[in-house]
């Protein structure tokens, strides 16, 4: 019931977000969409993910989005300037075909029998508490005291996520740490690209740039 409600509104807000020409409205619908997705996470017992979704996306990123939209004072774009008129219908057509394709794929792949909701309830039975290191992966940590099993109880909670993110025996520690490099690069990049004047540049060059691109 709740799934249908919020899943449906996520869809609707997503579509309206794309369709609204006014960027502020679009952004607001995106915020709503993010909230709906957060609620879906809640329904799946992923409380941490839900709150983080709200904090990061709705609370920080979208506020910046709105900030930029308002700062640039973006209005509704003028359609008469659009040179590639045929692009729009073509895009819609291709999107529909692609959606149909994926729909067919997913429809075929979901096993017949129990409906989706039943599967969701059943899912945790797939997970058994880990008694020993993962046999599928060799060279695991062999000290069982180090591994605290993720059980259905801790799945989706802060404890569970923390244990699988920061445990060297789990698969997720490395990508998590590697992502920090990614963020560092992004920070460096934004500084490099947005800084008024780099140490090597002289003032006249920077002025030239601003005049040239502004």
């Amino acid at each position, binding site marked *: 019931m709740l799934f249908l409600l919020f899943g449906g509104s996520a869809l609707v807000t997503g579509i309206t977000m794309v369709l609204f020409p006014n960027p*502020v409205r679009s952004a*607001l619908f995106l*915020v709503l969409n993010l909230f709906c997705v957060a609620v879906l996470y809640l329904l799946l017992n992923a*409380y*941490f993910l839900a*709150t*983080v979704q*709200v*904090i990061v996306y*709705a*609370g*920080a990123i979208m*506020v*910046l989005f*709105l*900030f930029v939209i*308002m*700062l640039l004072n973006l209005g509704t774009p003028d359609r008469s300037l659009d040179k590639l008129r045929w692009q729009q219908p073509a895009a819609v057509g291709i999107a529909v075909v692609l959606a149909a394709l994926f729909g067919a794929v997913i429809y075929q792949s979901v096993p017949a029998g129990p409906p989706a909701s039943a599967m969701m309830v059943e899912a945790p039975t797939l997970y058994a508490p880990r008694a020993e290191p993962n046999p599928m992966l060799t060279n695991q940590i062999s000290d069982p005291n180090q591994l605290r099993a993720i059980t259905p109880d801790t799945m989706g*909670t*802060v404890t569970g996520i923390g244990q699988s993110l920061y445990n060297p025996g789990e698969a997720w520690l490395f990508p998590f740490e590697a992502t920090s490099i990614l963020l560092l690069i992004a920070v460096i990049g934004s500084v490099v690209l947005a800084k008024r004047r780099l140490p090597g540049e002289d003032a006249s060059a920077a002025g030239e740039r601003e005049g040239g691109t502004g």
Partner: protein
Amino acid sequence: MNDLWQQLFILPTDQIPWWAEVFRSVIRLVIALAGGLGSVPILVWLERRLLGWFQGRLGPNRVGPFGLLQPLADALKLMMKEDIIPTNVDRTIYVMAPAIALFPVILSLTVLPWNGSREWGAVAPNIDIGILFLLAVGSIEVYGAILAGWSSNNKYSLLGGLRASSQVISYELGMGLSIVSVLLIAGTLGTQSLVMGYDLSQTGVLAPGTLLGNGQAIVSVASVGDTGYTVYEHAASSGFWDWHFLRLFPFGLIATGIYMISMIAETNRAPFDLPEAETELVAGFHTEYSSFKFAMFFMGEYANMLIVSAICVTLFFGGWLAPFGFLSQLPAVTGLYVAPGVVNFVNSFVIAPFWLFTKLYVLIGLFIAVRASFPRLRYDMLMKFGWKGMLPVALGNLVLIATSLAVQQVTFPSLGYYGAWWAGQGVAWGITLVVVGILFYGKYVQYQAKKRVARTTDLIAPIRRPTVIVPTPSAPAPEA
């Protein structure tokens, strides 16, 4: 009858039918709303009287005793006024904005605890991500101001909205980091557990003598079973020295300071009230609002003040706990029989909220004193202070807290509780001293260099650069 009573008020959650749970939720919600929104008029009155006092005038004193009914009169006036919607506004968003401003504030009320009871401590007492929820809700509060500013179709409003968004985003970082610091110290995300120092959601009875997260041991275990009043057994031995602002001295205190500064910025109050700076922006994002919509912004601002203060009290100042443990509960008077239920009721619904509200109003008094004392910041100063001052300090503080705790964890078995504490703190203090020393040395070197430059530039003519003439050794000097 007795059964119904038991179901509605006494039995633990898992033993009651759903309608009793709904009933309890409604009751808890009513309590929270009464406590939260009911405080708003008192706050308004308090602010005006205190400001008057700070500024050497009287403040409102005509309506009711001491002017106590003034807020009521204000509210009536606002509701009577004409509700104007200017022609060129974006109507939908314009109407929605005040509601969006007020909504998250009410939502935050759901996880703020007023006592330690598992059943009656907060609207949603058992939620294990309480603090994260507060952060999430706090992060969407700014939408009200932004949308109001944008939809009003007014330059001043738009500037106010823009300022609000950038300011809130900037200060949220420091705020979040200080909250993370306290979470590291407490080791839990639940609001009640945070205050009490142990994880309330853990099932099972803690044995007497168990060491809790906040450094106290459980003195005795009461009969849990009914309403989970285990709290007071250890709270009795604790006091303000166990609250988080004094933990891991001075790092807890630094985190507290950072939180308190950013909470003023988050609520857009003086000296950080740039979004509604009346000398520059008329009234900022709510310039175009009138009547009830304005009242909602007004209410939202005051309720928000209350909420951030309540979060501050919960995180750093021991929530509902009394400054000295024995003040937390009714004294056990020998020979006088009082039913345990009554004792519990008084303890959790009179004494605990009393301390909570006392702390809250002290903090709010501080808010008002700050408003009366400091001039408004300039916008670039505000940003600089947030990004270059608060954020690095908060980050460094967080790292030091983590270091201290990690060292404590490693050395705990060998050195014992206090030994580990001193080891961890020693390392953290050492790092602090070294880093601060280096920073000061750097500043000192800079200062010296600047002094030298100043001296040399005094000596040489300002326009010409000094030219150094090197005598060529090969050329023989002509004999005079």
